[in-house]
């Protein structure tokens, strides 16, 4: 692997397969209750979060600790980014403290790339702006692979705020490299430019997006997007763009239901869909720890 994991755009199919293979192994161990591996013994892992997150930060922290690393969390108030210490200075300080891995989440796209350019430590992108969230996509992919045994010919429908979603982008890059089709649906106000050239296919209707889908993934709709005028109300969003049991009938029976969390019940997905038997939302969380263990272990392996 490269020094850093900044996104799936620049990662090859083979590298993704390697990560998923190691992650699959880690997940088995976790299921057996094994929570002490020596892979990161003597290594220090820093989570440097400029954005609030519980799920991703805890997942990384547990992944580090399960592999015997020294893990330290740093939360930086978003409001102090502009006036506080610069990202490069913070990175250099952490470097001087002999950090081995820095996991960064930042509201600005490209911040992990800037950090990686300026530190010796390995950098893992835990989500940057509207750019990428590679570990989330990899955990989604692990969950899908375990269920279907592969990606070839699968139709993955992603519905929600595509434009502002780093999860959707990393999934497009990753899933299409492994042979799945990614179909996207959202109001035009939340669809990025030239999505087709990124590898996704934009559906003309909700039904077309869901039709025969093997995986249905919802993305969180944030209330601030309504305030920004991108849609009128959450209830109107749900009515025309959300997924309930009736809409789900177009998808394959037993299509996997996924969501990167946290979920807005009754907005992007109905509660019945979220709690259905074929919902993998909790399994995704376990995949998350496994994938992060795999990446930490592969990056720091000599």
């Amino acid at each position, binding site marked *: 692997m490269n020094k850093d994991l900044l996104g799936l755009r620049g990662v090859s199919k083979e590298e993704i397969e390697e990560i998923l293979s190691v992650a699959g192994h880690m997940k088995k161990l976790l299921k057996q209750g094994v929570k002490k591996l020596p892979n990161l013994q003597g290594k220090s892992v820093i989570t440097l979060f400029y954005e609030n997150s519980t799920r991703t930060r805890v997942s990384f922290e547990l992944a580090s600790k399960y592999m015997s690393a020294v893990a330290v969390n740093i939360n930086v108030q978003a409001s102090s980014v502009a006036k506080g210490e610069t990202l490069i200075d913070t990175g250099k300080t952490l470097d001087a403290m002999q950090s081995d891995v820095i996991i960064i989440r930042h509201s600005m*796209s*490209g911040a992990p*790339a800037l950090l990686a350019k300026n530190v010796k430590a390995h950098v893992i992108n835990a989500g940057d702006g509207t750019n990428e969230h590679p570990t989330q996509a990899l955990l989604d992919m692990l969950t899908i692979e375990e269920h279907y045994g592969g990606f070839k010919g699968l139709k993955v429908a992603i519905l929600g705020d595509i434009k502002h979603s*780093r999860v959707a*982008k990393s999934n497009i890059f990753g899933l299409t490299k492994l042979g799945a089709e990614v179909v996207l649906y959202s109001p035009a106000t939340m669809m990025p430019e030239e999505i087709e050239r*990124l590898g996704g296919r934009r559906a003309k209707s909700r039904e077309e997006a869901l039709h025969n889908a093997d995986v249905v993934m919802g993305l969180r709709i944030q209330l601030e997007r309504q305030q920004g005028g991108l849609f009128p109300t959450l209830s109107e969003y749900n009515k025309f763009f959300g997924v309930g049991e009736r809409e789900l009938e177009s998808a394959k029976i037993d299509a996997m239901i996924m969501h990167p969390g946290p979920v807005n019940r009754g907005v992007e997905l109905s509660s019945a869909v979220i709690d259905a038997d074929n919902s993998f939302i909790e399994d995704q969380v376990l995949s998350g720890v496994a994938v992060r263990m795999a990446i930490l272990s592969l990056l720091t392996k000599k």
Partner: protein
Amino acid sequence: MYTYVIKNGTVVTDKGLIECDLLIENGRIAKIGKGFTADNIIDASGKHILPGFIDMHVHLRDPGYEYKEDISSGSRAAVKGGFTQIACMPNTKPICDNAAVVGYILKRASEVGLCRVLVIGAATKDEKGEELAEIGKMKEAGIVAVSDDGQPVWDSRIMRLVIEYAGDFGLMVLSHCEDKKLSDGGLVNEGYHSSLAGLKGITRAAEEVMVARDIILAETLKQRVHICHISTKGSVNLVREAKRRGVKVTCETCPHYFGATDEMILNYDPSTKVNPPLREDSDVEAIIEGLKDGTIDAIVTDHAPHHKDEKNIEYALAAFGISGLETSFALSYTKLVKENGLSLLALSKLMSANPAAMLCVEGGSIAEGVKADITVCDLNKEWVVDSSKFLSKGKNTPFNGMKLWGEVVMTIADGRIVYSEGING
């Protein structure tokens, strides 16, 4: 006074390229021809002699932001780039919206004494777009045009009043066309590359709706309007159609709108961050077409020097702007003349005669009797851009490391040699 001859060069004149010598006397081009004698001879064999370049869109940052650039460093960068006249925009601190600031800039520029610095006054008080600035008093103090550059005059009624009032004083309005609601805090051109990088896009429409508005105002008021730094195919088309209808509109573009595309943003290097943003291939083609067919009147740099600390940070936090004075000619020569078949004479007009005519200032041509504003270039010289060698304080350029053709070897302003490198003089 100082008399000398520039010998054996190829001189770019209105009538075409001529092999001849220039006799310079008392700061003027006394004679063009052959067989002049003087104590001092500049041998320009193998070099091209062009009218001194005029950049009608520069940010000198002085007063107020001297850590980015000052009148001295900006002037040195300008003459190294072959410019004998530069017009500086009013977005200083304080804003150049009154005669006192105009006077300060002109005084400092004459103390520095390299190129001529022309001053553009703010169109509205404090560039707020709310009330007219003291355009008349600033005209008395010496401004050559008005602009709120950096800020659009978003209120169409105020823009109308500015155009009318500045017109009374014979001054043209230079308009930074941007609908800020549409650009909405965007960072780069909206398109494939913004989606790929996850950087917030600026739709071309943000520029074009304001270009259209200003054309309509110029047409309605039968007044002149000059559109700053156009960057899109749509803007070129709007100006072309307006000119065809006889609207008194002129426009400019910058080397980075025909010498670069938004593909460069993918590594998140903030040296690529500029407003308007770097666009796509189809826009670059349209800009070049517009330069060739006369739709675009001038090449300017929009020289926007920034401190390293304002650029070596997260893309979203970094300042907009490119330090352009020292690469403008070579980029233009390489991209337009070498690669796209524009004639050297046409390039010269875009960089000298046209800006002089638009700003109604002396200069811009080589003829007997005119001020000796001259730029000597070695067109056969290929060189590599190295921003650490810039004389500007702003090292912010996306062209670092790029190989370019055409180097300025001497700049003469008012007959004085203000820059010389690799040529005896």
